């Protein structure tokens, strides 16, 4: 069970993450995108979900990642992400509830480049009963 005291907390990513051309190329190839000068719309999920997992499975937070399904996902893109970008990532646990034994947690990820917000992404994650 998620520790309810963690709702509202924001966690800063430790290091900046550099978006590599080869990562963008691989993602573009999967979806058939020929323009590899810009990251595809959902590319940053690889950064975001990795950070969510790291934070939410900490012992003091306590989410069970092994029974997790993705409920919904939304991106607001303020500036396109490009290869070479150095991004920092903050994650905020926005809400948490239990319904029919399922834990439902909404987490927001804010990606910044040079201290400017480039992408906010909301994920609703469901831990199945």
């Amino acid at each position, binding site marked *: 069970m998620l520790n309810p005291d963690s709702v509202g907390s924001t966690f800063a990513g430790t290091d900046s993450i550099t978006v590599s051309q080869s990562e963008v190329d691989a993602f573009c190839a999967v979806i058939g995108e020929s323009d590899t000068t810009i990251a595809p*719309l959902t590319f940053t999920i690889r950064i975001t979900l990795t950070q969510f997992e790291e934070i939410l499975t900490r012992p003091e937070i306590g989410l069970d990642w092994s029974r997790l399904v993705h409920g919904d996902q939304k991106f*607001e893109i303020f500036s396109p992400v490009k290869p070479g970008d150095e991004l920092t990532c903050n994650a905020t646990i926005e809400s948490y509830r239990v319904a029919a034994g399922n834990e439902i947690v909404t987490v927001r990820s804010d990606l910044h480049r040079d201290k400017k917000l480039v992408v906010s992404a909301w994920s609703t994650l469901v831990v199945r009963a």
Partner: protein
Amino acid sequence: MIEVGTQLPEKIFYLDRELLKRYADASGDQNPIHKNEEFAVSVGLPNVIAHGMLTMALVGKYVSDFAGGSAKVVEFGARFTKPVIVPAGQKVDLTVTATVAEISEGKISLTLSATSAGVKVLGMAKAIVLQ
């Protein structure tokens, strides 16, 4: 001419196990439900399923093609209502369409539809693109 109510052309993507493997590598999501049938069935799924985010990435490609590039898309969201089931040795469809829901202040809102094998796989799917 794009106006409210305009339906955009349908596009069909095809998914197979190989594409799921490539997406797993590209996204870093190596959950075995996307590659191992025995494991997927053991956790109550009908078969191997596609990553919800792969479905969303493909619908995102549809949106950015309409918009004239990823740089013109400012918002994109969806709910994962049903899984895209990908049996071994098969190619399954992901059929995407969209309707123009609103045009205002230089932005076009799209309501997106995504089905696989006739089943709606995304709910509340929408995108906002710059005109």
